[in-house]
């Protein structure tokens, strides 16, 4: 990616001293790896309804586009009552001076039509106020009225991509475990929702313990662990039809912590027999299983590198939980975590540049990231119990479980960006744990 003359807005990698905002000399560009201190002011002008039937959709789509962008922590949406000029014609000219006067750096305009066959057509444009020019071409998305939120997310993904140079992540889903009831008798249901907490749908009933779902690389299947048979076993569920099948045919042991390979055809999982837990791989087509580790220690929580060539996992072979990397077919494992404390739940970034993990040290839990060789470890969070990071499809944001302490303690889903900024709790109606982020939807 060619880095254009950059608007530097923040900390370098979260631990350097703040830099003074430099004079902007080129098109608007935010580098996400530099933690943004001051969100860039933008204006998401109310999308125009091109026919009366589109009025409500236009208002709702505008709100979702703005919420997506503001939710990144990179932008703030300048209030409508500060506008000097209004956008009244999608194809009309832009009064750049009027937007510059209220310090808007980028303007998003849009128009929504509801066609006679009940389809939404959403057009948008993005303008860089400083350079006085459009940032990219106008684009148009269409979809059924029931997918108006997805259309809004796609618009926001485009705006985000054009300003940051990164792929967006708004048109994505999260599978997680809903938790209700008291702490010593929690009822658990597998559920799926949009990345922002909307459109919750349940995938299992609450009759069994369910744990740690993971999306397939195409987002249409989910692996998880269920106690439905009375014992923990791994299952695969088709999201479209909400039908599940056990992958466990070996009844002599308990299996858990399943994850897909990038090809979607191989599954890694943990198997405990006689108190010893090791890693195995299962070929979904043939049913063939291969043991990858063979040690008296605990080996679990595996994650493939995005090219499928390596596996990062946790093991207590050194005496406590640490992170190791080994070839995808098994073989010699190299330890990569060497800091204070214990490391678990490693997850390889979809971009391949970082490994996220849970760290337990001195009575606290942290979500952190490190380079894939273990260097440049950075802790992004700290609390009583943070656990189980999952990557946004663009590898720039993490979601995880944060559990509060005490008899009334319960888990909730939080997100944070990889610079450690923009920590926030997802708005959800119940306690929730074990999030797993889908790929960007097609």
């Amino acid at each position, binding site marked *: 990616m060619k880095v254009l003359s950059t608007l530097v807005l923040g900390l370098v990698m979260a631990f350097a001293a703040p830099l003074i905002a430099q004079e902007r000399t080129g098109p608007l560009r935010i580098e996400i790896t530099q933690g943004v201190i001051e969100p860039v002011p933008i204006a998401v002008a109310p999308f125009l309804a091109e026919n009366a039937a589109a009025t409500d959709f236009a208002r709702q789509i505008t709100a979702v586009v703005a919420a997506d962008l503001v939710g990144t922590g990179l932008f703030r949406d300048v209030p409508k009552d500060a506008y000097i000029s209004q956008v009244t014609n999608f194809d009309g000219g832009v009064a750049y001076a009027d937007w510059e006067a209220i310090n808007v750096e980028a303007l998003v305009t849009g128009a929504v039509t509801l066609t006679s066959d009940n389809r939404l057509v959403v057009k948008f444009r993005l303008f860089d106020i400083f350079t006085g020019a459009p940032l990219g071409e106008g684009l148009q998305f269409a979809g059924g009225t029931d997918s108006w939120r997805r259309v809004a997310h796609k618009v926001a993904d485009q705006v985000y991509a054009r300003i940051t140079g990164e792929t967006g992540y708004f048109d994505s889903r999260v599978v997680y475990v809903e938790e209700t009831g008291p*702490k*010593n008798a929690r009822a658990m249901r597998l559920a799926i929702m949009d990345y922002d907490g909307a459109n919750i749908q349940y995938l299992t009933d609450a009759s069994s313990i369910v*744990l740690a779902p993971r999306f397939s690389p195409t987002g249409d299947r989910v692996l998880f662990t269920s106690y439905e048979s*009375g014992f923990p076993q791994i299952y695969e569920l088709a999201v479209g039809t909400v039908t599940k099948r056990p992958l466990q045919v070996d009844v*002599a042991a308990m299996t858990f912590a399943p994850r897909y390979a990038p090809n979607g055809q191989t599954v890694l999982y943990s198997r405990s027999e006689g108190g*010893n837990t090791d890693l195995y791989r299962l070929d979904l087509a043939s049913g063939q299983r291969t043991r990858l580790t063979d040690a008296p220690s605990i080996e*679990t929580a595996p994650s493939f590198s995005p090219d499928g060539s390596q596996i990062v996992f946790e093991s207590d072979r050194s005496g406590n939980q640490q992170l190791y990397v080994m070839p995808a077919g098994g073989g010699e494992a190299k330890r990569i975590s060497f800091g204070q404390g214990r490391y*678990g739940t490693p997850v390889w970034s979809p971009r391949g540049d970082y490994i996220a993990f849970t760290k*337990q040290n001195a009575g606290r839990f942290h979500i952190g990231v490190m380079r894939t060789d273990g260097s440049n470890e950075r802790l992004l969070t700290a609390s009583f119990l943070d*656990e189980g990071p999952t990557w946004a499809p663009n590898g720039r944001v993490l979601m995880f479980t944060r559990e509060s302490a005490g008899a009334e303690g319960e888990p909730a889903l939080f997100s944070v960006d990889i610079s450690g900024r923009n920590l926030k709790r997802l708005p959800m109606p119940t306690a929730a744990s074990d999030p797993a982020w889908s790929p960007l939807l097609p």
Partner: protein
Amino acid sequence: MTFLKMAVAAVALVALGACTNADRFGPGGADAAGGGFGANGGIAGSASDPTSPAFFNQTIGDRVLFAVDQSTLSPEAQAVLDQQAVWLMQNSAYRALIEGHADEQGTTDYNLALGARRASSVQNYLISRGVAPNRLQTISYGKERPIQICSDEGCYSQNRRAVTVITAGAGV
């Protein structure tokens, strides 16, 4: 720590021999797991009857506790398990499901594995005292089923447990 690892290794070797019964996840296991986490409910009988599961639960003690991140059996735990083994050998109409549990300090996956270690540790000890392997099954609940819900050591120490749940049936 070296000593611990050796102990774990020895436990694992013993357990490989003990867990090869292909039917150990039969219907009895599901019944036991559904019966409620150590309650030994419907079949308990009277605690004054030494052949009753209620006697096992209340007089002998159905559970042993573990130190943080450990699966080794303390002398106190071994004393309880000695009595459990005698009871099981004298009451052959019953089987046992051994549930391993962890406290909430730890990640989900690791605690599942740790609970499996604890359950296996108890299973191997009972076998070493003469209980037939085909009467014992194990399961781990990790940190998903605490019995005490506060977040301090007073509760954690009770949650780091292995519970021997008596079920009807003479073995599988």
